[in-house]
């Protein structure tokens, strides 16, 4: 496959699409599919055929505002319809070429206007199982350009110049990581994509893998060229069967088109990718645990150094990046490092995809420039807290993150600002809580999670999280004392400082951040035996008092 052949495919798709007067895009991502989007698509296809109009009905990945699903977008007018049921298919097809249907039309201009789409640029635009659709949207152009016009060093330089930082949560500079692996000695090197999206409440990576799988593959292939690897692995959660099947199809199609395999783009570059399934262990998001899991062993982390860049999979130099990091690569190569560097805040460049969920009006996926205020994400894009309730906190970073209170909403989102507030960027889950959530109970929820997900290798994490859970359970049931609170804080410091890997080191964050911003809720539970959110059952306390 050469660039000319690629352009020919793109041209063919455009020609084919020009044969249609209208394109009806149906979102078939999990949220919409669970509300009957599949039947809707069938009905639309049937109605389109019966109408005699030239209509292309296309299934797409996630369009974003999942709470409005099932979503349908009619092009070229870009009319967005929400909560569409299958019985409306006839009316939609009939309205093509006339005025749009006001009862289904969805006004989310504010929601979309504040977003900048880089990773999600194709989301809702292409059929994820058609490589031609991806190619028609400049797909694989970056890969072939890199192979024919750039040196591996040049690619590393461009990524470094862009200022991209790892999107899995840690925020390590991607260019620096690539440079280290590129310089590592050894014939055999590996490139790994971490698709083990274990943070409960986050689904950005799932949407990218399901909605635009070739973007991830292209990013990995460019990375492999830059660091000198010829073999890659995508490690995906087994809980994401659709992502696995979309990636499998995408890999097959890429091979068929000569975009994976030997002599890609008629150059000496060889690269292929295999899928490895996770098996439900949160700790496997940690890179050394992930490597152990790909090698078929228990996913327990090991001390670093040596870092995977020097000794990773099967002892070879290995590059590990997150799904979203790879998804940023092709646009950076196409548009230049400076283009990316110009977006975002001082030390956090580009955009970030967030999964907005919990007590918020517009749940779903959003992509915003770094540096945007949390308030804008929650109130303008997210539409605020529904049902007349009051915003209490937003949780970022999953079990390793923290809860950010209302007073801090005017802070701009960046790796450093979130860290300063006692949370982390994490992979991008953003869970909004209102006055019906008890922050002590939330802390207990996360500690319970970390306790059961602790691999058990190091004692501070294994025993510490279990003791923290006991203390928090006591407080939540009204049996806690002020001494317990002191002990809890002490334990947090011990677990944070003495644990082997990121899971243990960050496990106390939800407790520490709620203690910092919502200490009064803890003391209320202990001194007044009361949970003002009404979540914790204080039965034990009542018995003691009686």
């Amino acid at each position: 496959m050469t660039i000319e052949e690629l352009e020919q495919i793109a041209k063919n798709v455009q020609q084919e699409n020009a044969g249609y007067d209208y394109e009806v895009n149906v979102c078939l991502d999990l949220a919409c599919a669970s509300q009957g989007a599949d039947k809707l698509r069938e009905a639309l296809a049937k109605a389109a055929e019966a109408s005699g109009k030239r209509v292309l009905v296309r299934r797409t990945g996630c369009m974003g505002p999942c709470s409005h699903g099932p979503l349908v977008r009619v092009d070229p007018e870009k009319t967005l319809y929400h909560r569409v049921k299958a019985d409306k298919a006839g009316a939609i097809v009939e309205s093509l070429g006339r005025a749009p249907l006001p009862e289904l039309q969805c006004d989310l201009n504010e929601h979309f206007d504040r977003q900048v789409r880089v990773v999600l640029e194709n989301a809702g635009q292409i059929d994820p199982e058609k490589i031609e659709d991806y190619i028609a949207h400049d797909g694989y152009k970056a890969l072939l350009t890199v192979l024919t016009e750039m040196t591996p060093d040049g690619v590393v330089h461009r990524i470094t110049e862009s200022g991209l930082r790892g999107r899995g949560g840690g925020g390590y500079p991607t260019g620096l990581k690539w440079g280290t692996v590129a310089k590592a000695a050894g014939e055999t090197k590996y490139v790994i994509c971490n698709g083990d999206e274990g943070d409960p409440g986050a689904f950005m990576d799932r949407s990218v893998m399901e909605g635009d799988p070739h973007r991830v593959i292209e990013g990995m292939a460019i990375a492999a060229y830059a660091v000198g690897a010829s073999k890659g692995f995508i490690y995906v959660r087994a809980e994401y069967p659709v992502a696995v099947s979309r990636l499998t199809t995408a890999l097959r199609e890429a091979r068929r088109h000569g975009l994976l395999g030997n002599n890609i783009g008629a150059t000496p570059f060889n690269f292929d990718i295999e899928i490895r399934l996770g098996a439900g262990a949160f700790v496997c998001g940690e890179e050394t645990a992930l490597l152990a899991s790909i090698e078929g062993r228990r996913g327990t982390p090991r001390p670093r150094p040596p870092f995977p860049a020097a000794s990773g999979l099967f002892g070879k130099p290995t590059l590990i990046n997150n799904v979203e990091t790879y998804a940023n690569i092709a646009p950076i190569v196409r548009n230049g490092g400076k283009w990316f560097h110009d977006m975002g805040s001082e030390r956090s460049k580009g955009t970030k995809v967030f999964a907005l969920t919990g007590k918020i009006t517009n749940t779903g996926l959003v992509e915003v420039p770094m540096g945007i205020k949390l308030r804008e994400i929650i109130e303008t894009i997210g539409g605020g807290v529904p049902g007349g309730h009051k915003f209490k906190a937003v949780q970022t970073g999953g079990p390793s993150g923290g809860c950010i209170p209302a007073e801090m909403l005017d802070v701009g989102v960046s790796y450093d600002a979130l860290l300063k507030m006692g949370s982390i960027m994490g992979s991008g889950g953003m869970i909004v809580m209102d006055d019906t959530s008890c922050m002590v109970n939330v802390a207990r929820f996360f500690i319970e999670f970390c306790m059961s997900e602790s691999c058990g290798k190091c004692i501070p994490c294994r025993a510490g999280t279990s003791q923290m859970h006991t203390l928090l359970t006591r407080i939540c049931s009204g049996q806690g004392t002020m001494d317990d609170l002191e002990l809890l804080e002490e334990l947090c410091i011990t677990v944070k400082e003495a644990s082997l890997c990121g899971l243990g080191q960050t496990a106390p964050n939800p407790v520490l951040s709620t203690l910092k911003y919502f200490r009064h809720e803890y003391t209320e539970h202990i001194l007044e035996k009361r949970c003002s959110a009404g979540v914790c059952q204080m039965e034990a306390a009542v018995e003691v008092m009686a």
Partner: protein
Amino acid sequence: MSTFMPPPLPSDDKRWKIVNGTMRKSGFARHALIETLHTVQSSFGYLDDDAIRFVASSLRVPLSQAYGVVTFYHYFSLKPPGKHTATVCAGTACYIKGADKLIAAAEKKLGIGQGQTTSDGQISLMTARCVGACSRSPVALCDGEVVGEMTPEMMTEQLEKWSVE
């Protein structure tokens, strides 16, 4: 050095051929352990002692290590699932939106706890860490199908339907 001969298939059940195929694809390499266990579970529904033994000896992995892997990962199950399975998502977004009420309703209706199967083998009640459908929370998987914005009433109704089948 004699060449390694993989053990014979445990029975003439065709599913063992699928399992063997997964191992053959990787040249019976040890690192194919998790892949192979996935194939066993998707073919048989769970992992029993015979299956673990067969896979371990085919891949030349110590039994202790194979068992260690099976018990380490939540996804692997050592018990056969019921005819129907209700899986309540216990991710953060679902927790905030009241997944605990769904679990309580199901436990009450079935008289079993999470991770258990009713004595007639009809229904299993499971929890999941997060199925990634957070925008529709609280979510439950009813025989693998995502049901969003589920209420305790809907849960009880679904279980009722299954139990009278």
